[in-house]
């Protein structure tokens, strides 16, 4: 009797994560569409009351709304899919790489959907009433490159954060996520304590930091953490 020839690949894990398309594709698109519908509805109400929707460019709901669900999605994709993936014969390495592919695919999906919404918003002159939903100052004020990049990195980061918390739970139980939360908070406090006496001198350097640098750093740390937690994890 011999082992099989087929090695479970990260693409197989990607297929597992997208096994239920409603959860991965349907709901995120519903959230994005829901934000548009709700924002337009509220704007109509404001206009009917004699108000104005000008100045709503600071509305970042298109980004925040989808990120909350995406963190939960990232956590689910590890907490419940990891045991099932291994039950089907995946190695931990294939699972982590497949999960990375999943996060990238999800980020691309949301970014493309956001760009489509931006296109519609521009083409309709702000959903026919001049309201800005996607064209937010937070996401580039209509610059498709900035919007696409922000959504791409935001979703990638959110999936990775959810994933690393779930991976810590798989490995260490409830102590895992708690440890990450305490450790991260402690690190931030220490950084603040160290930098506060020299705030004036480091301020230019801090101000020079681009948000996307932080997103890339957090994503990288979370992905490495996910692998380190899962590579020796037992299935619960």
């Amino acid at each position, binding site marked *: *009797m*011999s*082992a*099989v*020839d*087929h*090695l*479970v690949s990260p693409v*197989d894990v990607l*297929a*597992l*994560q997208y*096994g*239920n398309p*409603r*959860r991965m594709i349907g709901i995120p698109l519903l959230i994005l569409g829901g934000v548009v519908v709700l924002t337009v509805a509220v704007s109509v109400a404001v206009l009917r009351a004699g108000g104005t929707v000008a100045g709503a460019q600071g509305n970042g709901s298109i980004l925040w709304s989808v990120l909350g669900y995406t963190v939960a999605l990232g956590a*689910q*994709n590890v*907490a*419940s*899919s990891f*045991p*099932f993936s*291994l*039950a*089907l*014969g*995946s*190695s*931990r*390495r*294939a699972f982590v790489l497949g999960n990375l592919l999943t996060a990238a695919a999800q980020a691309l999906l949301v970014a493309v959907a956001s760009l489509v919404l931006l296109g519609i918003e521009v083409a309709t002159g702000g959903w026919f009433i001049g309201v800005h939903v996607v064209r937010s100052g937070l996401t580039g004020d209509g610059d498709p490159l900035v919007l696409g990049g922000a959504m791409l990195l935001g979703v990638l980061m959110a999936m990775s954060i959810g994933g690393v918390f779930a991976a810590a739970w798989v490995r260490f*139980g409830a102590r895992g996520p708690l440890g990450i939360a305490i450790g991260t908070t402690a690190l931030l406090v220490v950084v603040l304590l160290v930098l506060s006496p020299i705030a004036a001198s480091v301020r230019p350097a801090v101000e020079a930091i681009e948000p996307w640098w932080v997103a890339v750093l957090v994503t990288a740390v979370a992905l490495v953490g996910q692998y380190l937690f899962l*590579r020796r994890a*037992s*299935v*619960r």
Partner: protein
Amino acid sequence: MTAPAIRLTGVSRRFGRTTALDDVTTDVPSGVVCGLLGRNGAGKTTLMSILAGHDRPSTGAVEVLGSDPFEHARVMGSVSLVRDNQRYPEDFKLRHVLRVAPRFHERWDADLAAALVDDFRLPARTTIKKMSRGQQSGVGIVIGLASRAPVTIFDEPYLGLDATARRIFADRLLASRFDGAARTIVLSTHLIDEMEQLLDHVLVLNGGRLVRAGATDEVTAAAWSLSGPADAALRLAGGRAPISTRRIGGLVSLVFAGPEPEGVGAEARAAGLQVAPVSLQDLVAALGADEAAPTAERAAA
């Protein structure tokens, strides 16, 4: 001689101060149906996890299909283990499982999976986590049998199954032995009487220790029972130490390890006692009644 499908050498697994498996050494031949038997907390699930590469021993060596399964992609891909409390992705329904599983198991038999779904009357619209206990066991059986994985492990497949479903599983398991897919099947169960006919090989665990291992008929042949009025039975037992003693009123049933001694049958009949072979279920129950054995608990649970 064919290499064993599974080889365990001095395998122990500890969770903190709890020893779930204690120095287990044995081989499981290739191509057999192997029963993993013992009481709750005996270490069965821990052993199955180690065989599938879902966990690894604290000490000792494990070989499945010739290699350590932990993070060995080819070996892990050759093993199917669906746990009795298997977690599935949120909102997964049966159709999602049937869509995904063939990607993971190269020998997946879609026709068999469809037939099993019909046999077990598994609901299509219910999410798996909302299925009844028996239906969830059915899903696990569908995955295990249809995977045709070279090493297929069933963790308590009978949980919650009705009598008809249990018979279907037994029939399908028997049929799977002749479907041309060489495979070794390991299954844990407490319904030993129902499964005994299907088991070629057994491993009996008690308190994390392997207390019996071998071909089923050899294991059961290495024990005998003496029963009848307590006074006469204990007198005939003499200095032999039973592995279990069961009293009901003035009657006693003693189970002894080893082959039945010559002449003891005639002596027993003369004393109004009965000497009989021990069924696998009685032997496992007797071995589990050993109060000296520590209870191995899954500390990580």
